[in-house]
């Protein structure tokens, strides 16, 4: 079936199997930034934003994102023009193998979009759905705190290659999909 969505700000049509997860759909379309770690929603390596909310894309049926705005790590900055969150991860040496990092960065973006000035407890709680085995989390927590500061100092939301930030969907009921911990 065909899936119509806004992908990193652009209209996109993805052809997906009815049973496919959003992760499968994205990766088959070449968006390999989101990683497959568990297929059960436990590790968070596949985290992307759906209508602004962090979602574990491995347990999100692709069909439920029809019409949604999906953001992946590919939609942030480029290597020579990093988004402030990405720059904070680089500058804080908040990465080693990197497999969890795209998910961590999207989780961080979801957090900071909703809460621009989180305290350490809020950061720890927000990131608890995303695992990392390399860093002991210390540098990642520092990076998120640093990213919040950078974003607060930036008038524009991001130097993210000029892509518009998708509007958050306003709806009375709960957003389709949403957080699944």
């Amino acid at each position, binding site marked *: 079936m065909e899936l119509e969505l806004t992908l990193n700000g652009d209209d996109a049509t993805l052809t997906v199997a009815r049973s496919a997860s959003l992760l499968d759909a994205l990766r088959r379309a070449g968006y390999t930034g989101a990683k497959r770690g568990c297929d059960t929603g436990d590790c968070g390596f596949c985290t992307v934003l759906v209508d602004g909310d962090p979602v574990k894309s491995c347990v999100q049926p692709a069909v439920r994102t029809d019409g949604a705005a999906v953001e992946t790590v590919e939609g942030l900055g480029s290597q020579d023009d990093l988004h402030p969150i990405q720059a904070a991860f*680089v500058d804080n040496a908040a990465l*080693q*193998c990197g497999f969890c990092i795209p998910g961590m960065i999207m989780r961080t973006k979801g957090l900071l979009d909703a809460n621009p000035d989180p305290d350490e407890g809020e950061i720890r709680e927000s990131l608890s759905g995303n695992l990392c*085995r390399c*860093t002991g989390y210390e540098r990642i927590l520092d990076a998120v705190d640093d990213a919040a500061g950078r974003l607060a100092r930036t008038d524009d939301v991001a130097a993210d290659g000029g892509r518009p930030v998708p509007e958050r969907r306003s709806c009375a009921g709960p957003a389709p999909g949403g957080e699944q911990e």
Partner: protein
Amino acid sequence: MSRTDDPDDGRAGELPPDEAERDAGADAADDPAGGEYATVASREEKVDARSIVTGDARYTADYAGTVPDLAEAAVLRSAVAHGVVTEIDTSRAAEMDGVYAVITPDSPSVPDRPYTSAGQSYPEPSPWDLHVLRRRVRYVGDPIAAVAAEDTATARAAVRRIDVTYEEFDAVFSPEAAMADGAPRLHDADEVENVQPGADYERNVEARVAGEIGDVDAAFEAAAARPDRTVVETEWETPHQSHCVPEPHTTIARRDEDDRYHLVTSTQVPWHVRRQLAHLFDVPVRDVRVTKPRIGAGFGGKQSMVIEPIALALALAADRPVKLEATRTEEFHAMRLRRPSRVTVRSVVTDEGDLEALDVSVVTNSGAYGPHGMTASGAVGKKPLPLYTHTPNVRLEATAVHTNLPVAGAMRGYGAPQGHFAIEGHMDEVARELGLDPIEFRSRNLIGEGDLDVASKILDPGEGHGRRIRSCGLDECIDRGKDAIGWNDVDQPEEDHLHRACGVALAMQGSGIPGDELGAAHIRMNEDGSFVLQTGAVDIGPGADTAMAQIAAEVLGARPADIVVQPSDTDVSPFDYGAYASSTTYVTGQAVKKAAEDAREQLFGVAARLLDEPADALTARGGAVRSERTGESVSLEAIGYESIYGDDVRAQVMGQASHSTDESPPPFGAQFVDVTVDERTGEFEIHDLVFAVDCGVAINPDLAAGQVTGAMHMSYELAVGGGLSFDDEGAPEVCGFRDYGMPRTDDQPPLTPILVETHEPTGPFGAKSVAEVPTNAVPPALSNAIRRAVGVRVSDLPITPEKVNAALDTQ
């Protein structure tokens, strides 16, 4: 015994001449900038950081879209713990739409010779007891058949349609049961090749190693008759631990256009995989190519060749490329794990606190097969014992036993975490018995700079006296760790039922395997003054590529950004034993340094012509070569253009070197824990975990500190969480992160790394290793802290409130 009583007759005192020369040469060459390293030992951005944060970095699975006609695969695994497959019916699977191949042990493309999954040097110190696919199954998870299909969903659906009939055998799950009379036998000795010392397959013993220094029995006999001697005996137990490796084991295997086998695979040991695949598939080594792309960490889990042969056999059967990606369930029970252990420690100590004898007995549970069994079991004792190298009488016996459980393998620390839990827990008990401060007692017996590490050679008594300790910052680690944790000024909580205390445990490791490593490097200069560096170093995440770039840049006077580091590829890169045993920075780093020095000599030749100065008056720094005599300089870029396009002698600057060594300088560390325990419930709260480490000169302190916190996290998980459990039939009960309980951001205590720098004269720019040693000591430090807080000892991991509470109840 005092430190002047040197047990070494032959190697005491000065360095041997070759080493002395090497040190002198290194000192001069290390210091091109006149006292400060320009790039080594400084913060540098990780070379792959930007590709990682943008999602551009490609791991094996991310290449799937670039391989035409790629099939995806799934594996059928044994549902019984012990038995033999009497019938496999694959017809329903084979006839499914989209299925390209179904293989079983009888398929022509499936090798039938035994091998070991251990990615070790040749010949492997592990038994060849595995087959790619098996009819005789020995644990729930043994691979029986596999499918290649148009996508993973189809492959998995096909696997579910394979009908298997088993004849089941009795199974054993503990080493004690496996060694008992009448226990079911797992392996037939006649069918195992490369059998290891001490093997007794009649009793399911895979290997047994033992060694002794002095006369331990005599020391215990003498102690029994002397009131001023104390004998202490303790027993310790550790469970399975999962690597929880982020990227599942993933392989893309194909036969290429030249009819060679090409694998893109998530491995720590490309060269061992190449050799072992060549052996299995009976082709020359040169006809196998192994490419290591970005790796989503390894921690030893990817030092094993587990899925590659299945993927390759499927690719041959399906006649198309095949991707095989382990599921998370498979990661938890069908890849490799840290081996459970039971360790008994007995010691004799004088009233003054001098250790007279240590007797250590280790039994580990290898599970169904034997990769790393002998070596990791021996390491349980060999790694921690050198801390107390002055002990005159030491015995170690280590036995690796087969059971019908998943297969143990290599894991960060490699036996040392199990051993440190036992030895460092024991040392606290001895100190307590004698009424001594645990740190003062340890310090009295501790190894130090200039000492000979006798104990490390305990299992090889014929090969001399062990390694000389040329750098040791253990005292400073203890001092700075004590200060950071607040050892001397712990405030007690106001509530009477809460008790707070600090615990300590010391740690050591090695840097590579002495006499059994090779790293090689090749570096060539581009015309713009940049360099391409090829090493076999396998960066699995922590930053080896960055460290290698810094080492080369330091020698060449270049910026690290001017060094392009190529990922390991057996067709392209020089040889390397692989990323294990804390070897990369120490061994391969030295090869890179030597190769860069070789290149520097050549570019000095070009610069000498351009500057009209003798080569020996030149230095390389700041992107240029300069004459110290005249102050004239010429840029690396000018040298690059001259070497390739110049009017004079045209020759590309290309340096190369290999490095192997008998040295394996240990990094040292001191782990501290600050804990409050509730004596009513056994619940405890860890306020801080501090690990102070002496890793020599830290190449890139940022990356080194990151490795320390990551390893502490893993050690903390071993101490309080994780662990696998199995039902009565041997089926795994933990198949995912949620069940396993890996620490998350909201339950991970703060981690404080402290880098204590020394200078290791045999290492590149003074470096030794740092990746493993911080994995070793949270369990004993926490157990010791709880013992000091409320007086009870938890001697089996994980340490849980329930266990503390149970111990308090029986106090």
